[in-house]
């Protein structure tokens, strides 16, 4: 039997905010019966973008029910902008922690929230699926969710990825693909990767634009979350010169951030040849 915290038990035994909201302003539905857990999140949002009510229906284990209950408690009274910042870590923390093997329940909560917000904004959400390529067929998990979860939770092993996303927990066919994603995220180039047909080389201008866009949209927001930042100093061929700012300057693992996160992300979004160097400026 799992070791659950008192708070998990309490939210499982007496879940808050169970049910549907009629005429909800946002609905986020993730998971499926096949996968063994599913969550339907309902939000009522007022004119000031504030969540005035949140309810849920969950099919799943004790931690799935507790995570959903916790999420709805956390959401009530928050603006959408505040709600958007809630991560799976926050949900797990609210509950005083979840067993490693159950972290996917908190990820499901975060996912449902993301889907609900998209739904509220009128953005298209593929039913129950994120954009990105399907990596795990057994549990319908995409590369996007896996990469996102790896980064958000600093995961380093396939087992952790399975605990957090369920990917790899069924037939196991997707385990090599998960390993490739992990290597990518950790900045290692997978040894067994088959070189793809080379896409047409970018022009200098294209490369520069893409680097700037990726830095702004993908990299800076994550660093800023931890109180750091990054500045683009120059681009010389495939070498991207940057300066770290804020918390990142004093961070002992700044090199890891640079290679493991910044460089990998740029390689992924821009060109595989990119290398990142830190310069003083």
């Amino acid at each position: 039997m799992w070791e659950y915290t008192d708070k998990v038990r309490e939210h499982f035994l007496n879940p808050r905010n169970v049910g549907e909201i009629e005429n909800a302003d946002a609905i986020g539905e993730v998971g499926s019966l096949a996968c063994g857990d599913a969550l339907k999140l309902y939000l009522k949002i007022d004119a000031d973008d504030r969540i005035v009510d949140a309810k849920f229906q969950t099919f799943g284990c004790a931690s799935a029910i507790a995570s959903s209950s916790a999420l709805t408690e956390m959401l009530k009274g928050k603006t959408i902008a505040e709600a958007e910042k809630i991560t799976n870590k926050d949900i797990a923390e609210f509950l005083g922690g979840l067993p490693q093997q159950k972290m996917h329940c908190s990820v499901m909560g975060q996912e449902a929230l993301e889907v609900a917000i998209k739904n509220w904004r009128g953005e298209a959400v593929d039913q129950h699926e994120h954009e990105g390529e399907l990596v795990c067929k057994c549990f319908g998990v995409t590369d996007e969710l896996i990469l996102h979860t790896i980064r958000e939770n600093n995961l380093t092993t396939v087992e952790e990825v399975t605990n957090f996303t369920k990917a790899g927990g069924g037939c196991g066919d997707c385990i090599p693909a998960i390993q490739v994603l992990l290597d990518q995220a950790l900045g290692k180039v997978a040894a067994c990767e088959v070189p793809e047909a080379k896409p047409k080389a970018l022009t200098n201008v294209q490369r520069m634009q893409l680097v700037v866009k990726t830095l702004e949209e993908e990299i800076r927001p994550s660093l800023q979350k931890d109180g750091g930042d990054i500045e683009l100093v120059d681009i010389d061929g495939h070498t991207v010169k940057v300066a770290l700012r804020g918390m990142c300057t004093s961070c002992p693992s700044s090199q890891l951030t640079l290679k493991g996160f910044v460089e990998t992300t740029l390689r992924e979004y821009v060109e595989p040849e990119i290398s990142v160097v830190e310069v003083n400026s």
Partner: protein
Amino acid sequence: MRTVYLDNNATTQIDPAVLEAMMPFLTEFYGNPSSMHRFGGQVGKYLVEARERVAASIGARPEEILFTACGTESDNTAIWSALNSQQDKRHIITTRVEHPAVLNLVQHLEKRGYEATYLGVDSKGQLDLDELREAIRKDTALVSIMYANNETGVVFPMEEIAAIVKERGVQLHTDAVQVVGKLPIDVSRLPVDFLALSGHKLHAPKGIGALYVRKGTPFRPFMRGGHQERGRRAGTENAASIVALGKACELATVNMAEERTRVKALRDRLEAGLLAAVPDSIVNGDVENRLPNTSSIAFKYVEGEAILLLMDGHGICASSGSACTSGSLEPSHVLRAMGVPFTYAHGSIRFSLSRFNTDADVDLVLKEVPPIINRLREISPFREGLEPKGEKLACGCK
């Protein structure tokens, strides 16, 4: 809070008479039976007696019984022996619903160059014997098929299986861990070569098992070292537990009639009561050919671990057929192999009784479990009329 223990296929309570029999070997008779002195040597005669009791309970001869540490060791020993004594044969036949003690070993052997055929089961959890017939090849070293399934209680037709396998001269192993003590077994008439049993499933302690090896079957030891068990299984004998197993086997023979009448009646009442009280619930597996103590019930639209935890709150112990509690994430391989729909599979609960259960136990389950299922269904986004249209995801786990 009173504990209502309905997880006897996982492990059983030690019978007080068994405990009494083994106690002296944990206290005053602590000598090593291999010692030259009388103090140790005197233990040996109790081991002889225990071996006779175990043998008698399955119709074997004492020299055909090998004491091991558990059912898993017995299964592993049988499989390794069959492969090592016929090194030119590289093929194994087993089923998709075996216990991990067999399944994981066979999968491991596949990685080491052996070929395996996994026989499927139908929706009742039964084998297709023609499939078995066709699967046997010239290079088949062993057929390993469980006698009864630990999750559903479904009993395989072992006589017919043995007839098919022996006609082709292939070695046959059966994991009978769930059957010994519940249904009569007579290896003098059932031509299996190996049969595994485990003490803690029949009211002996954990950590003791036995393997029946038919006289004349070539044998290669799994554990090597000293010459205990006539060189077939090295390691100082677990004397107290061996004595306990002997006593438990003797008692099992005596109590089998009760197992097949009173315990079965309790099980049937529990099952019928739950099915009547909880709409959208079914029994998994072949109800005609089933262990008398086991009932695997699937409750649609709810998830097993949540049910287990709420039952635990009322002191009711059972087991879940969704593997959520065991660290894996999918419904059990047994239910999947049977093609139990996901709507049911995740909410499957195994109730397994023993002769220590009473009417009061069943009453408590019938009182507490239906509201638990209702409560979880109220939280669930799925229910009658709100079923997802088709499986939403391309699930590889079909």
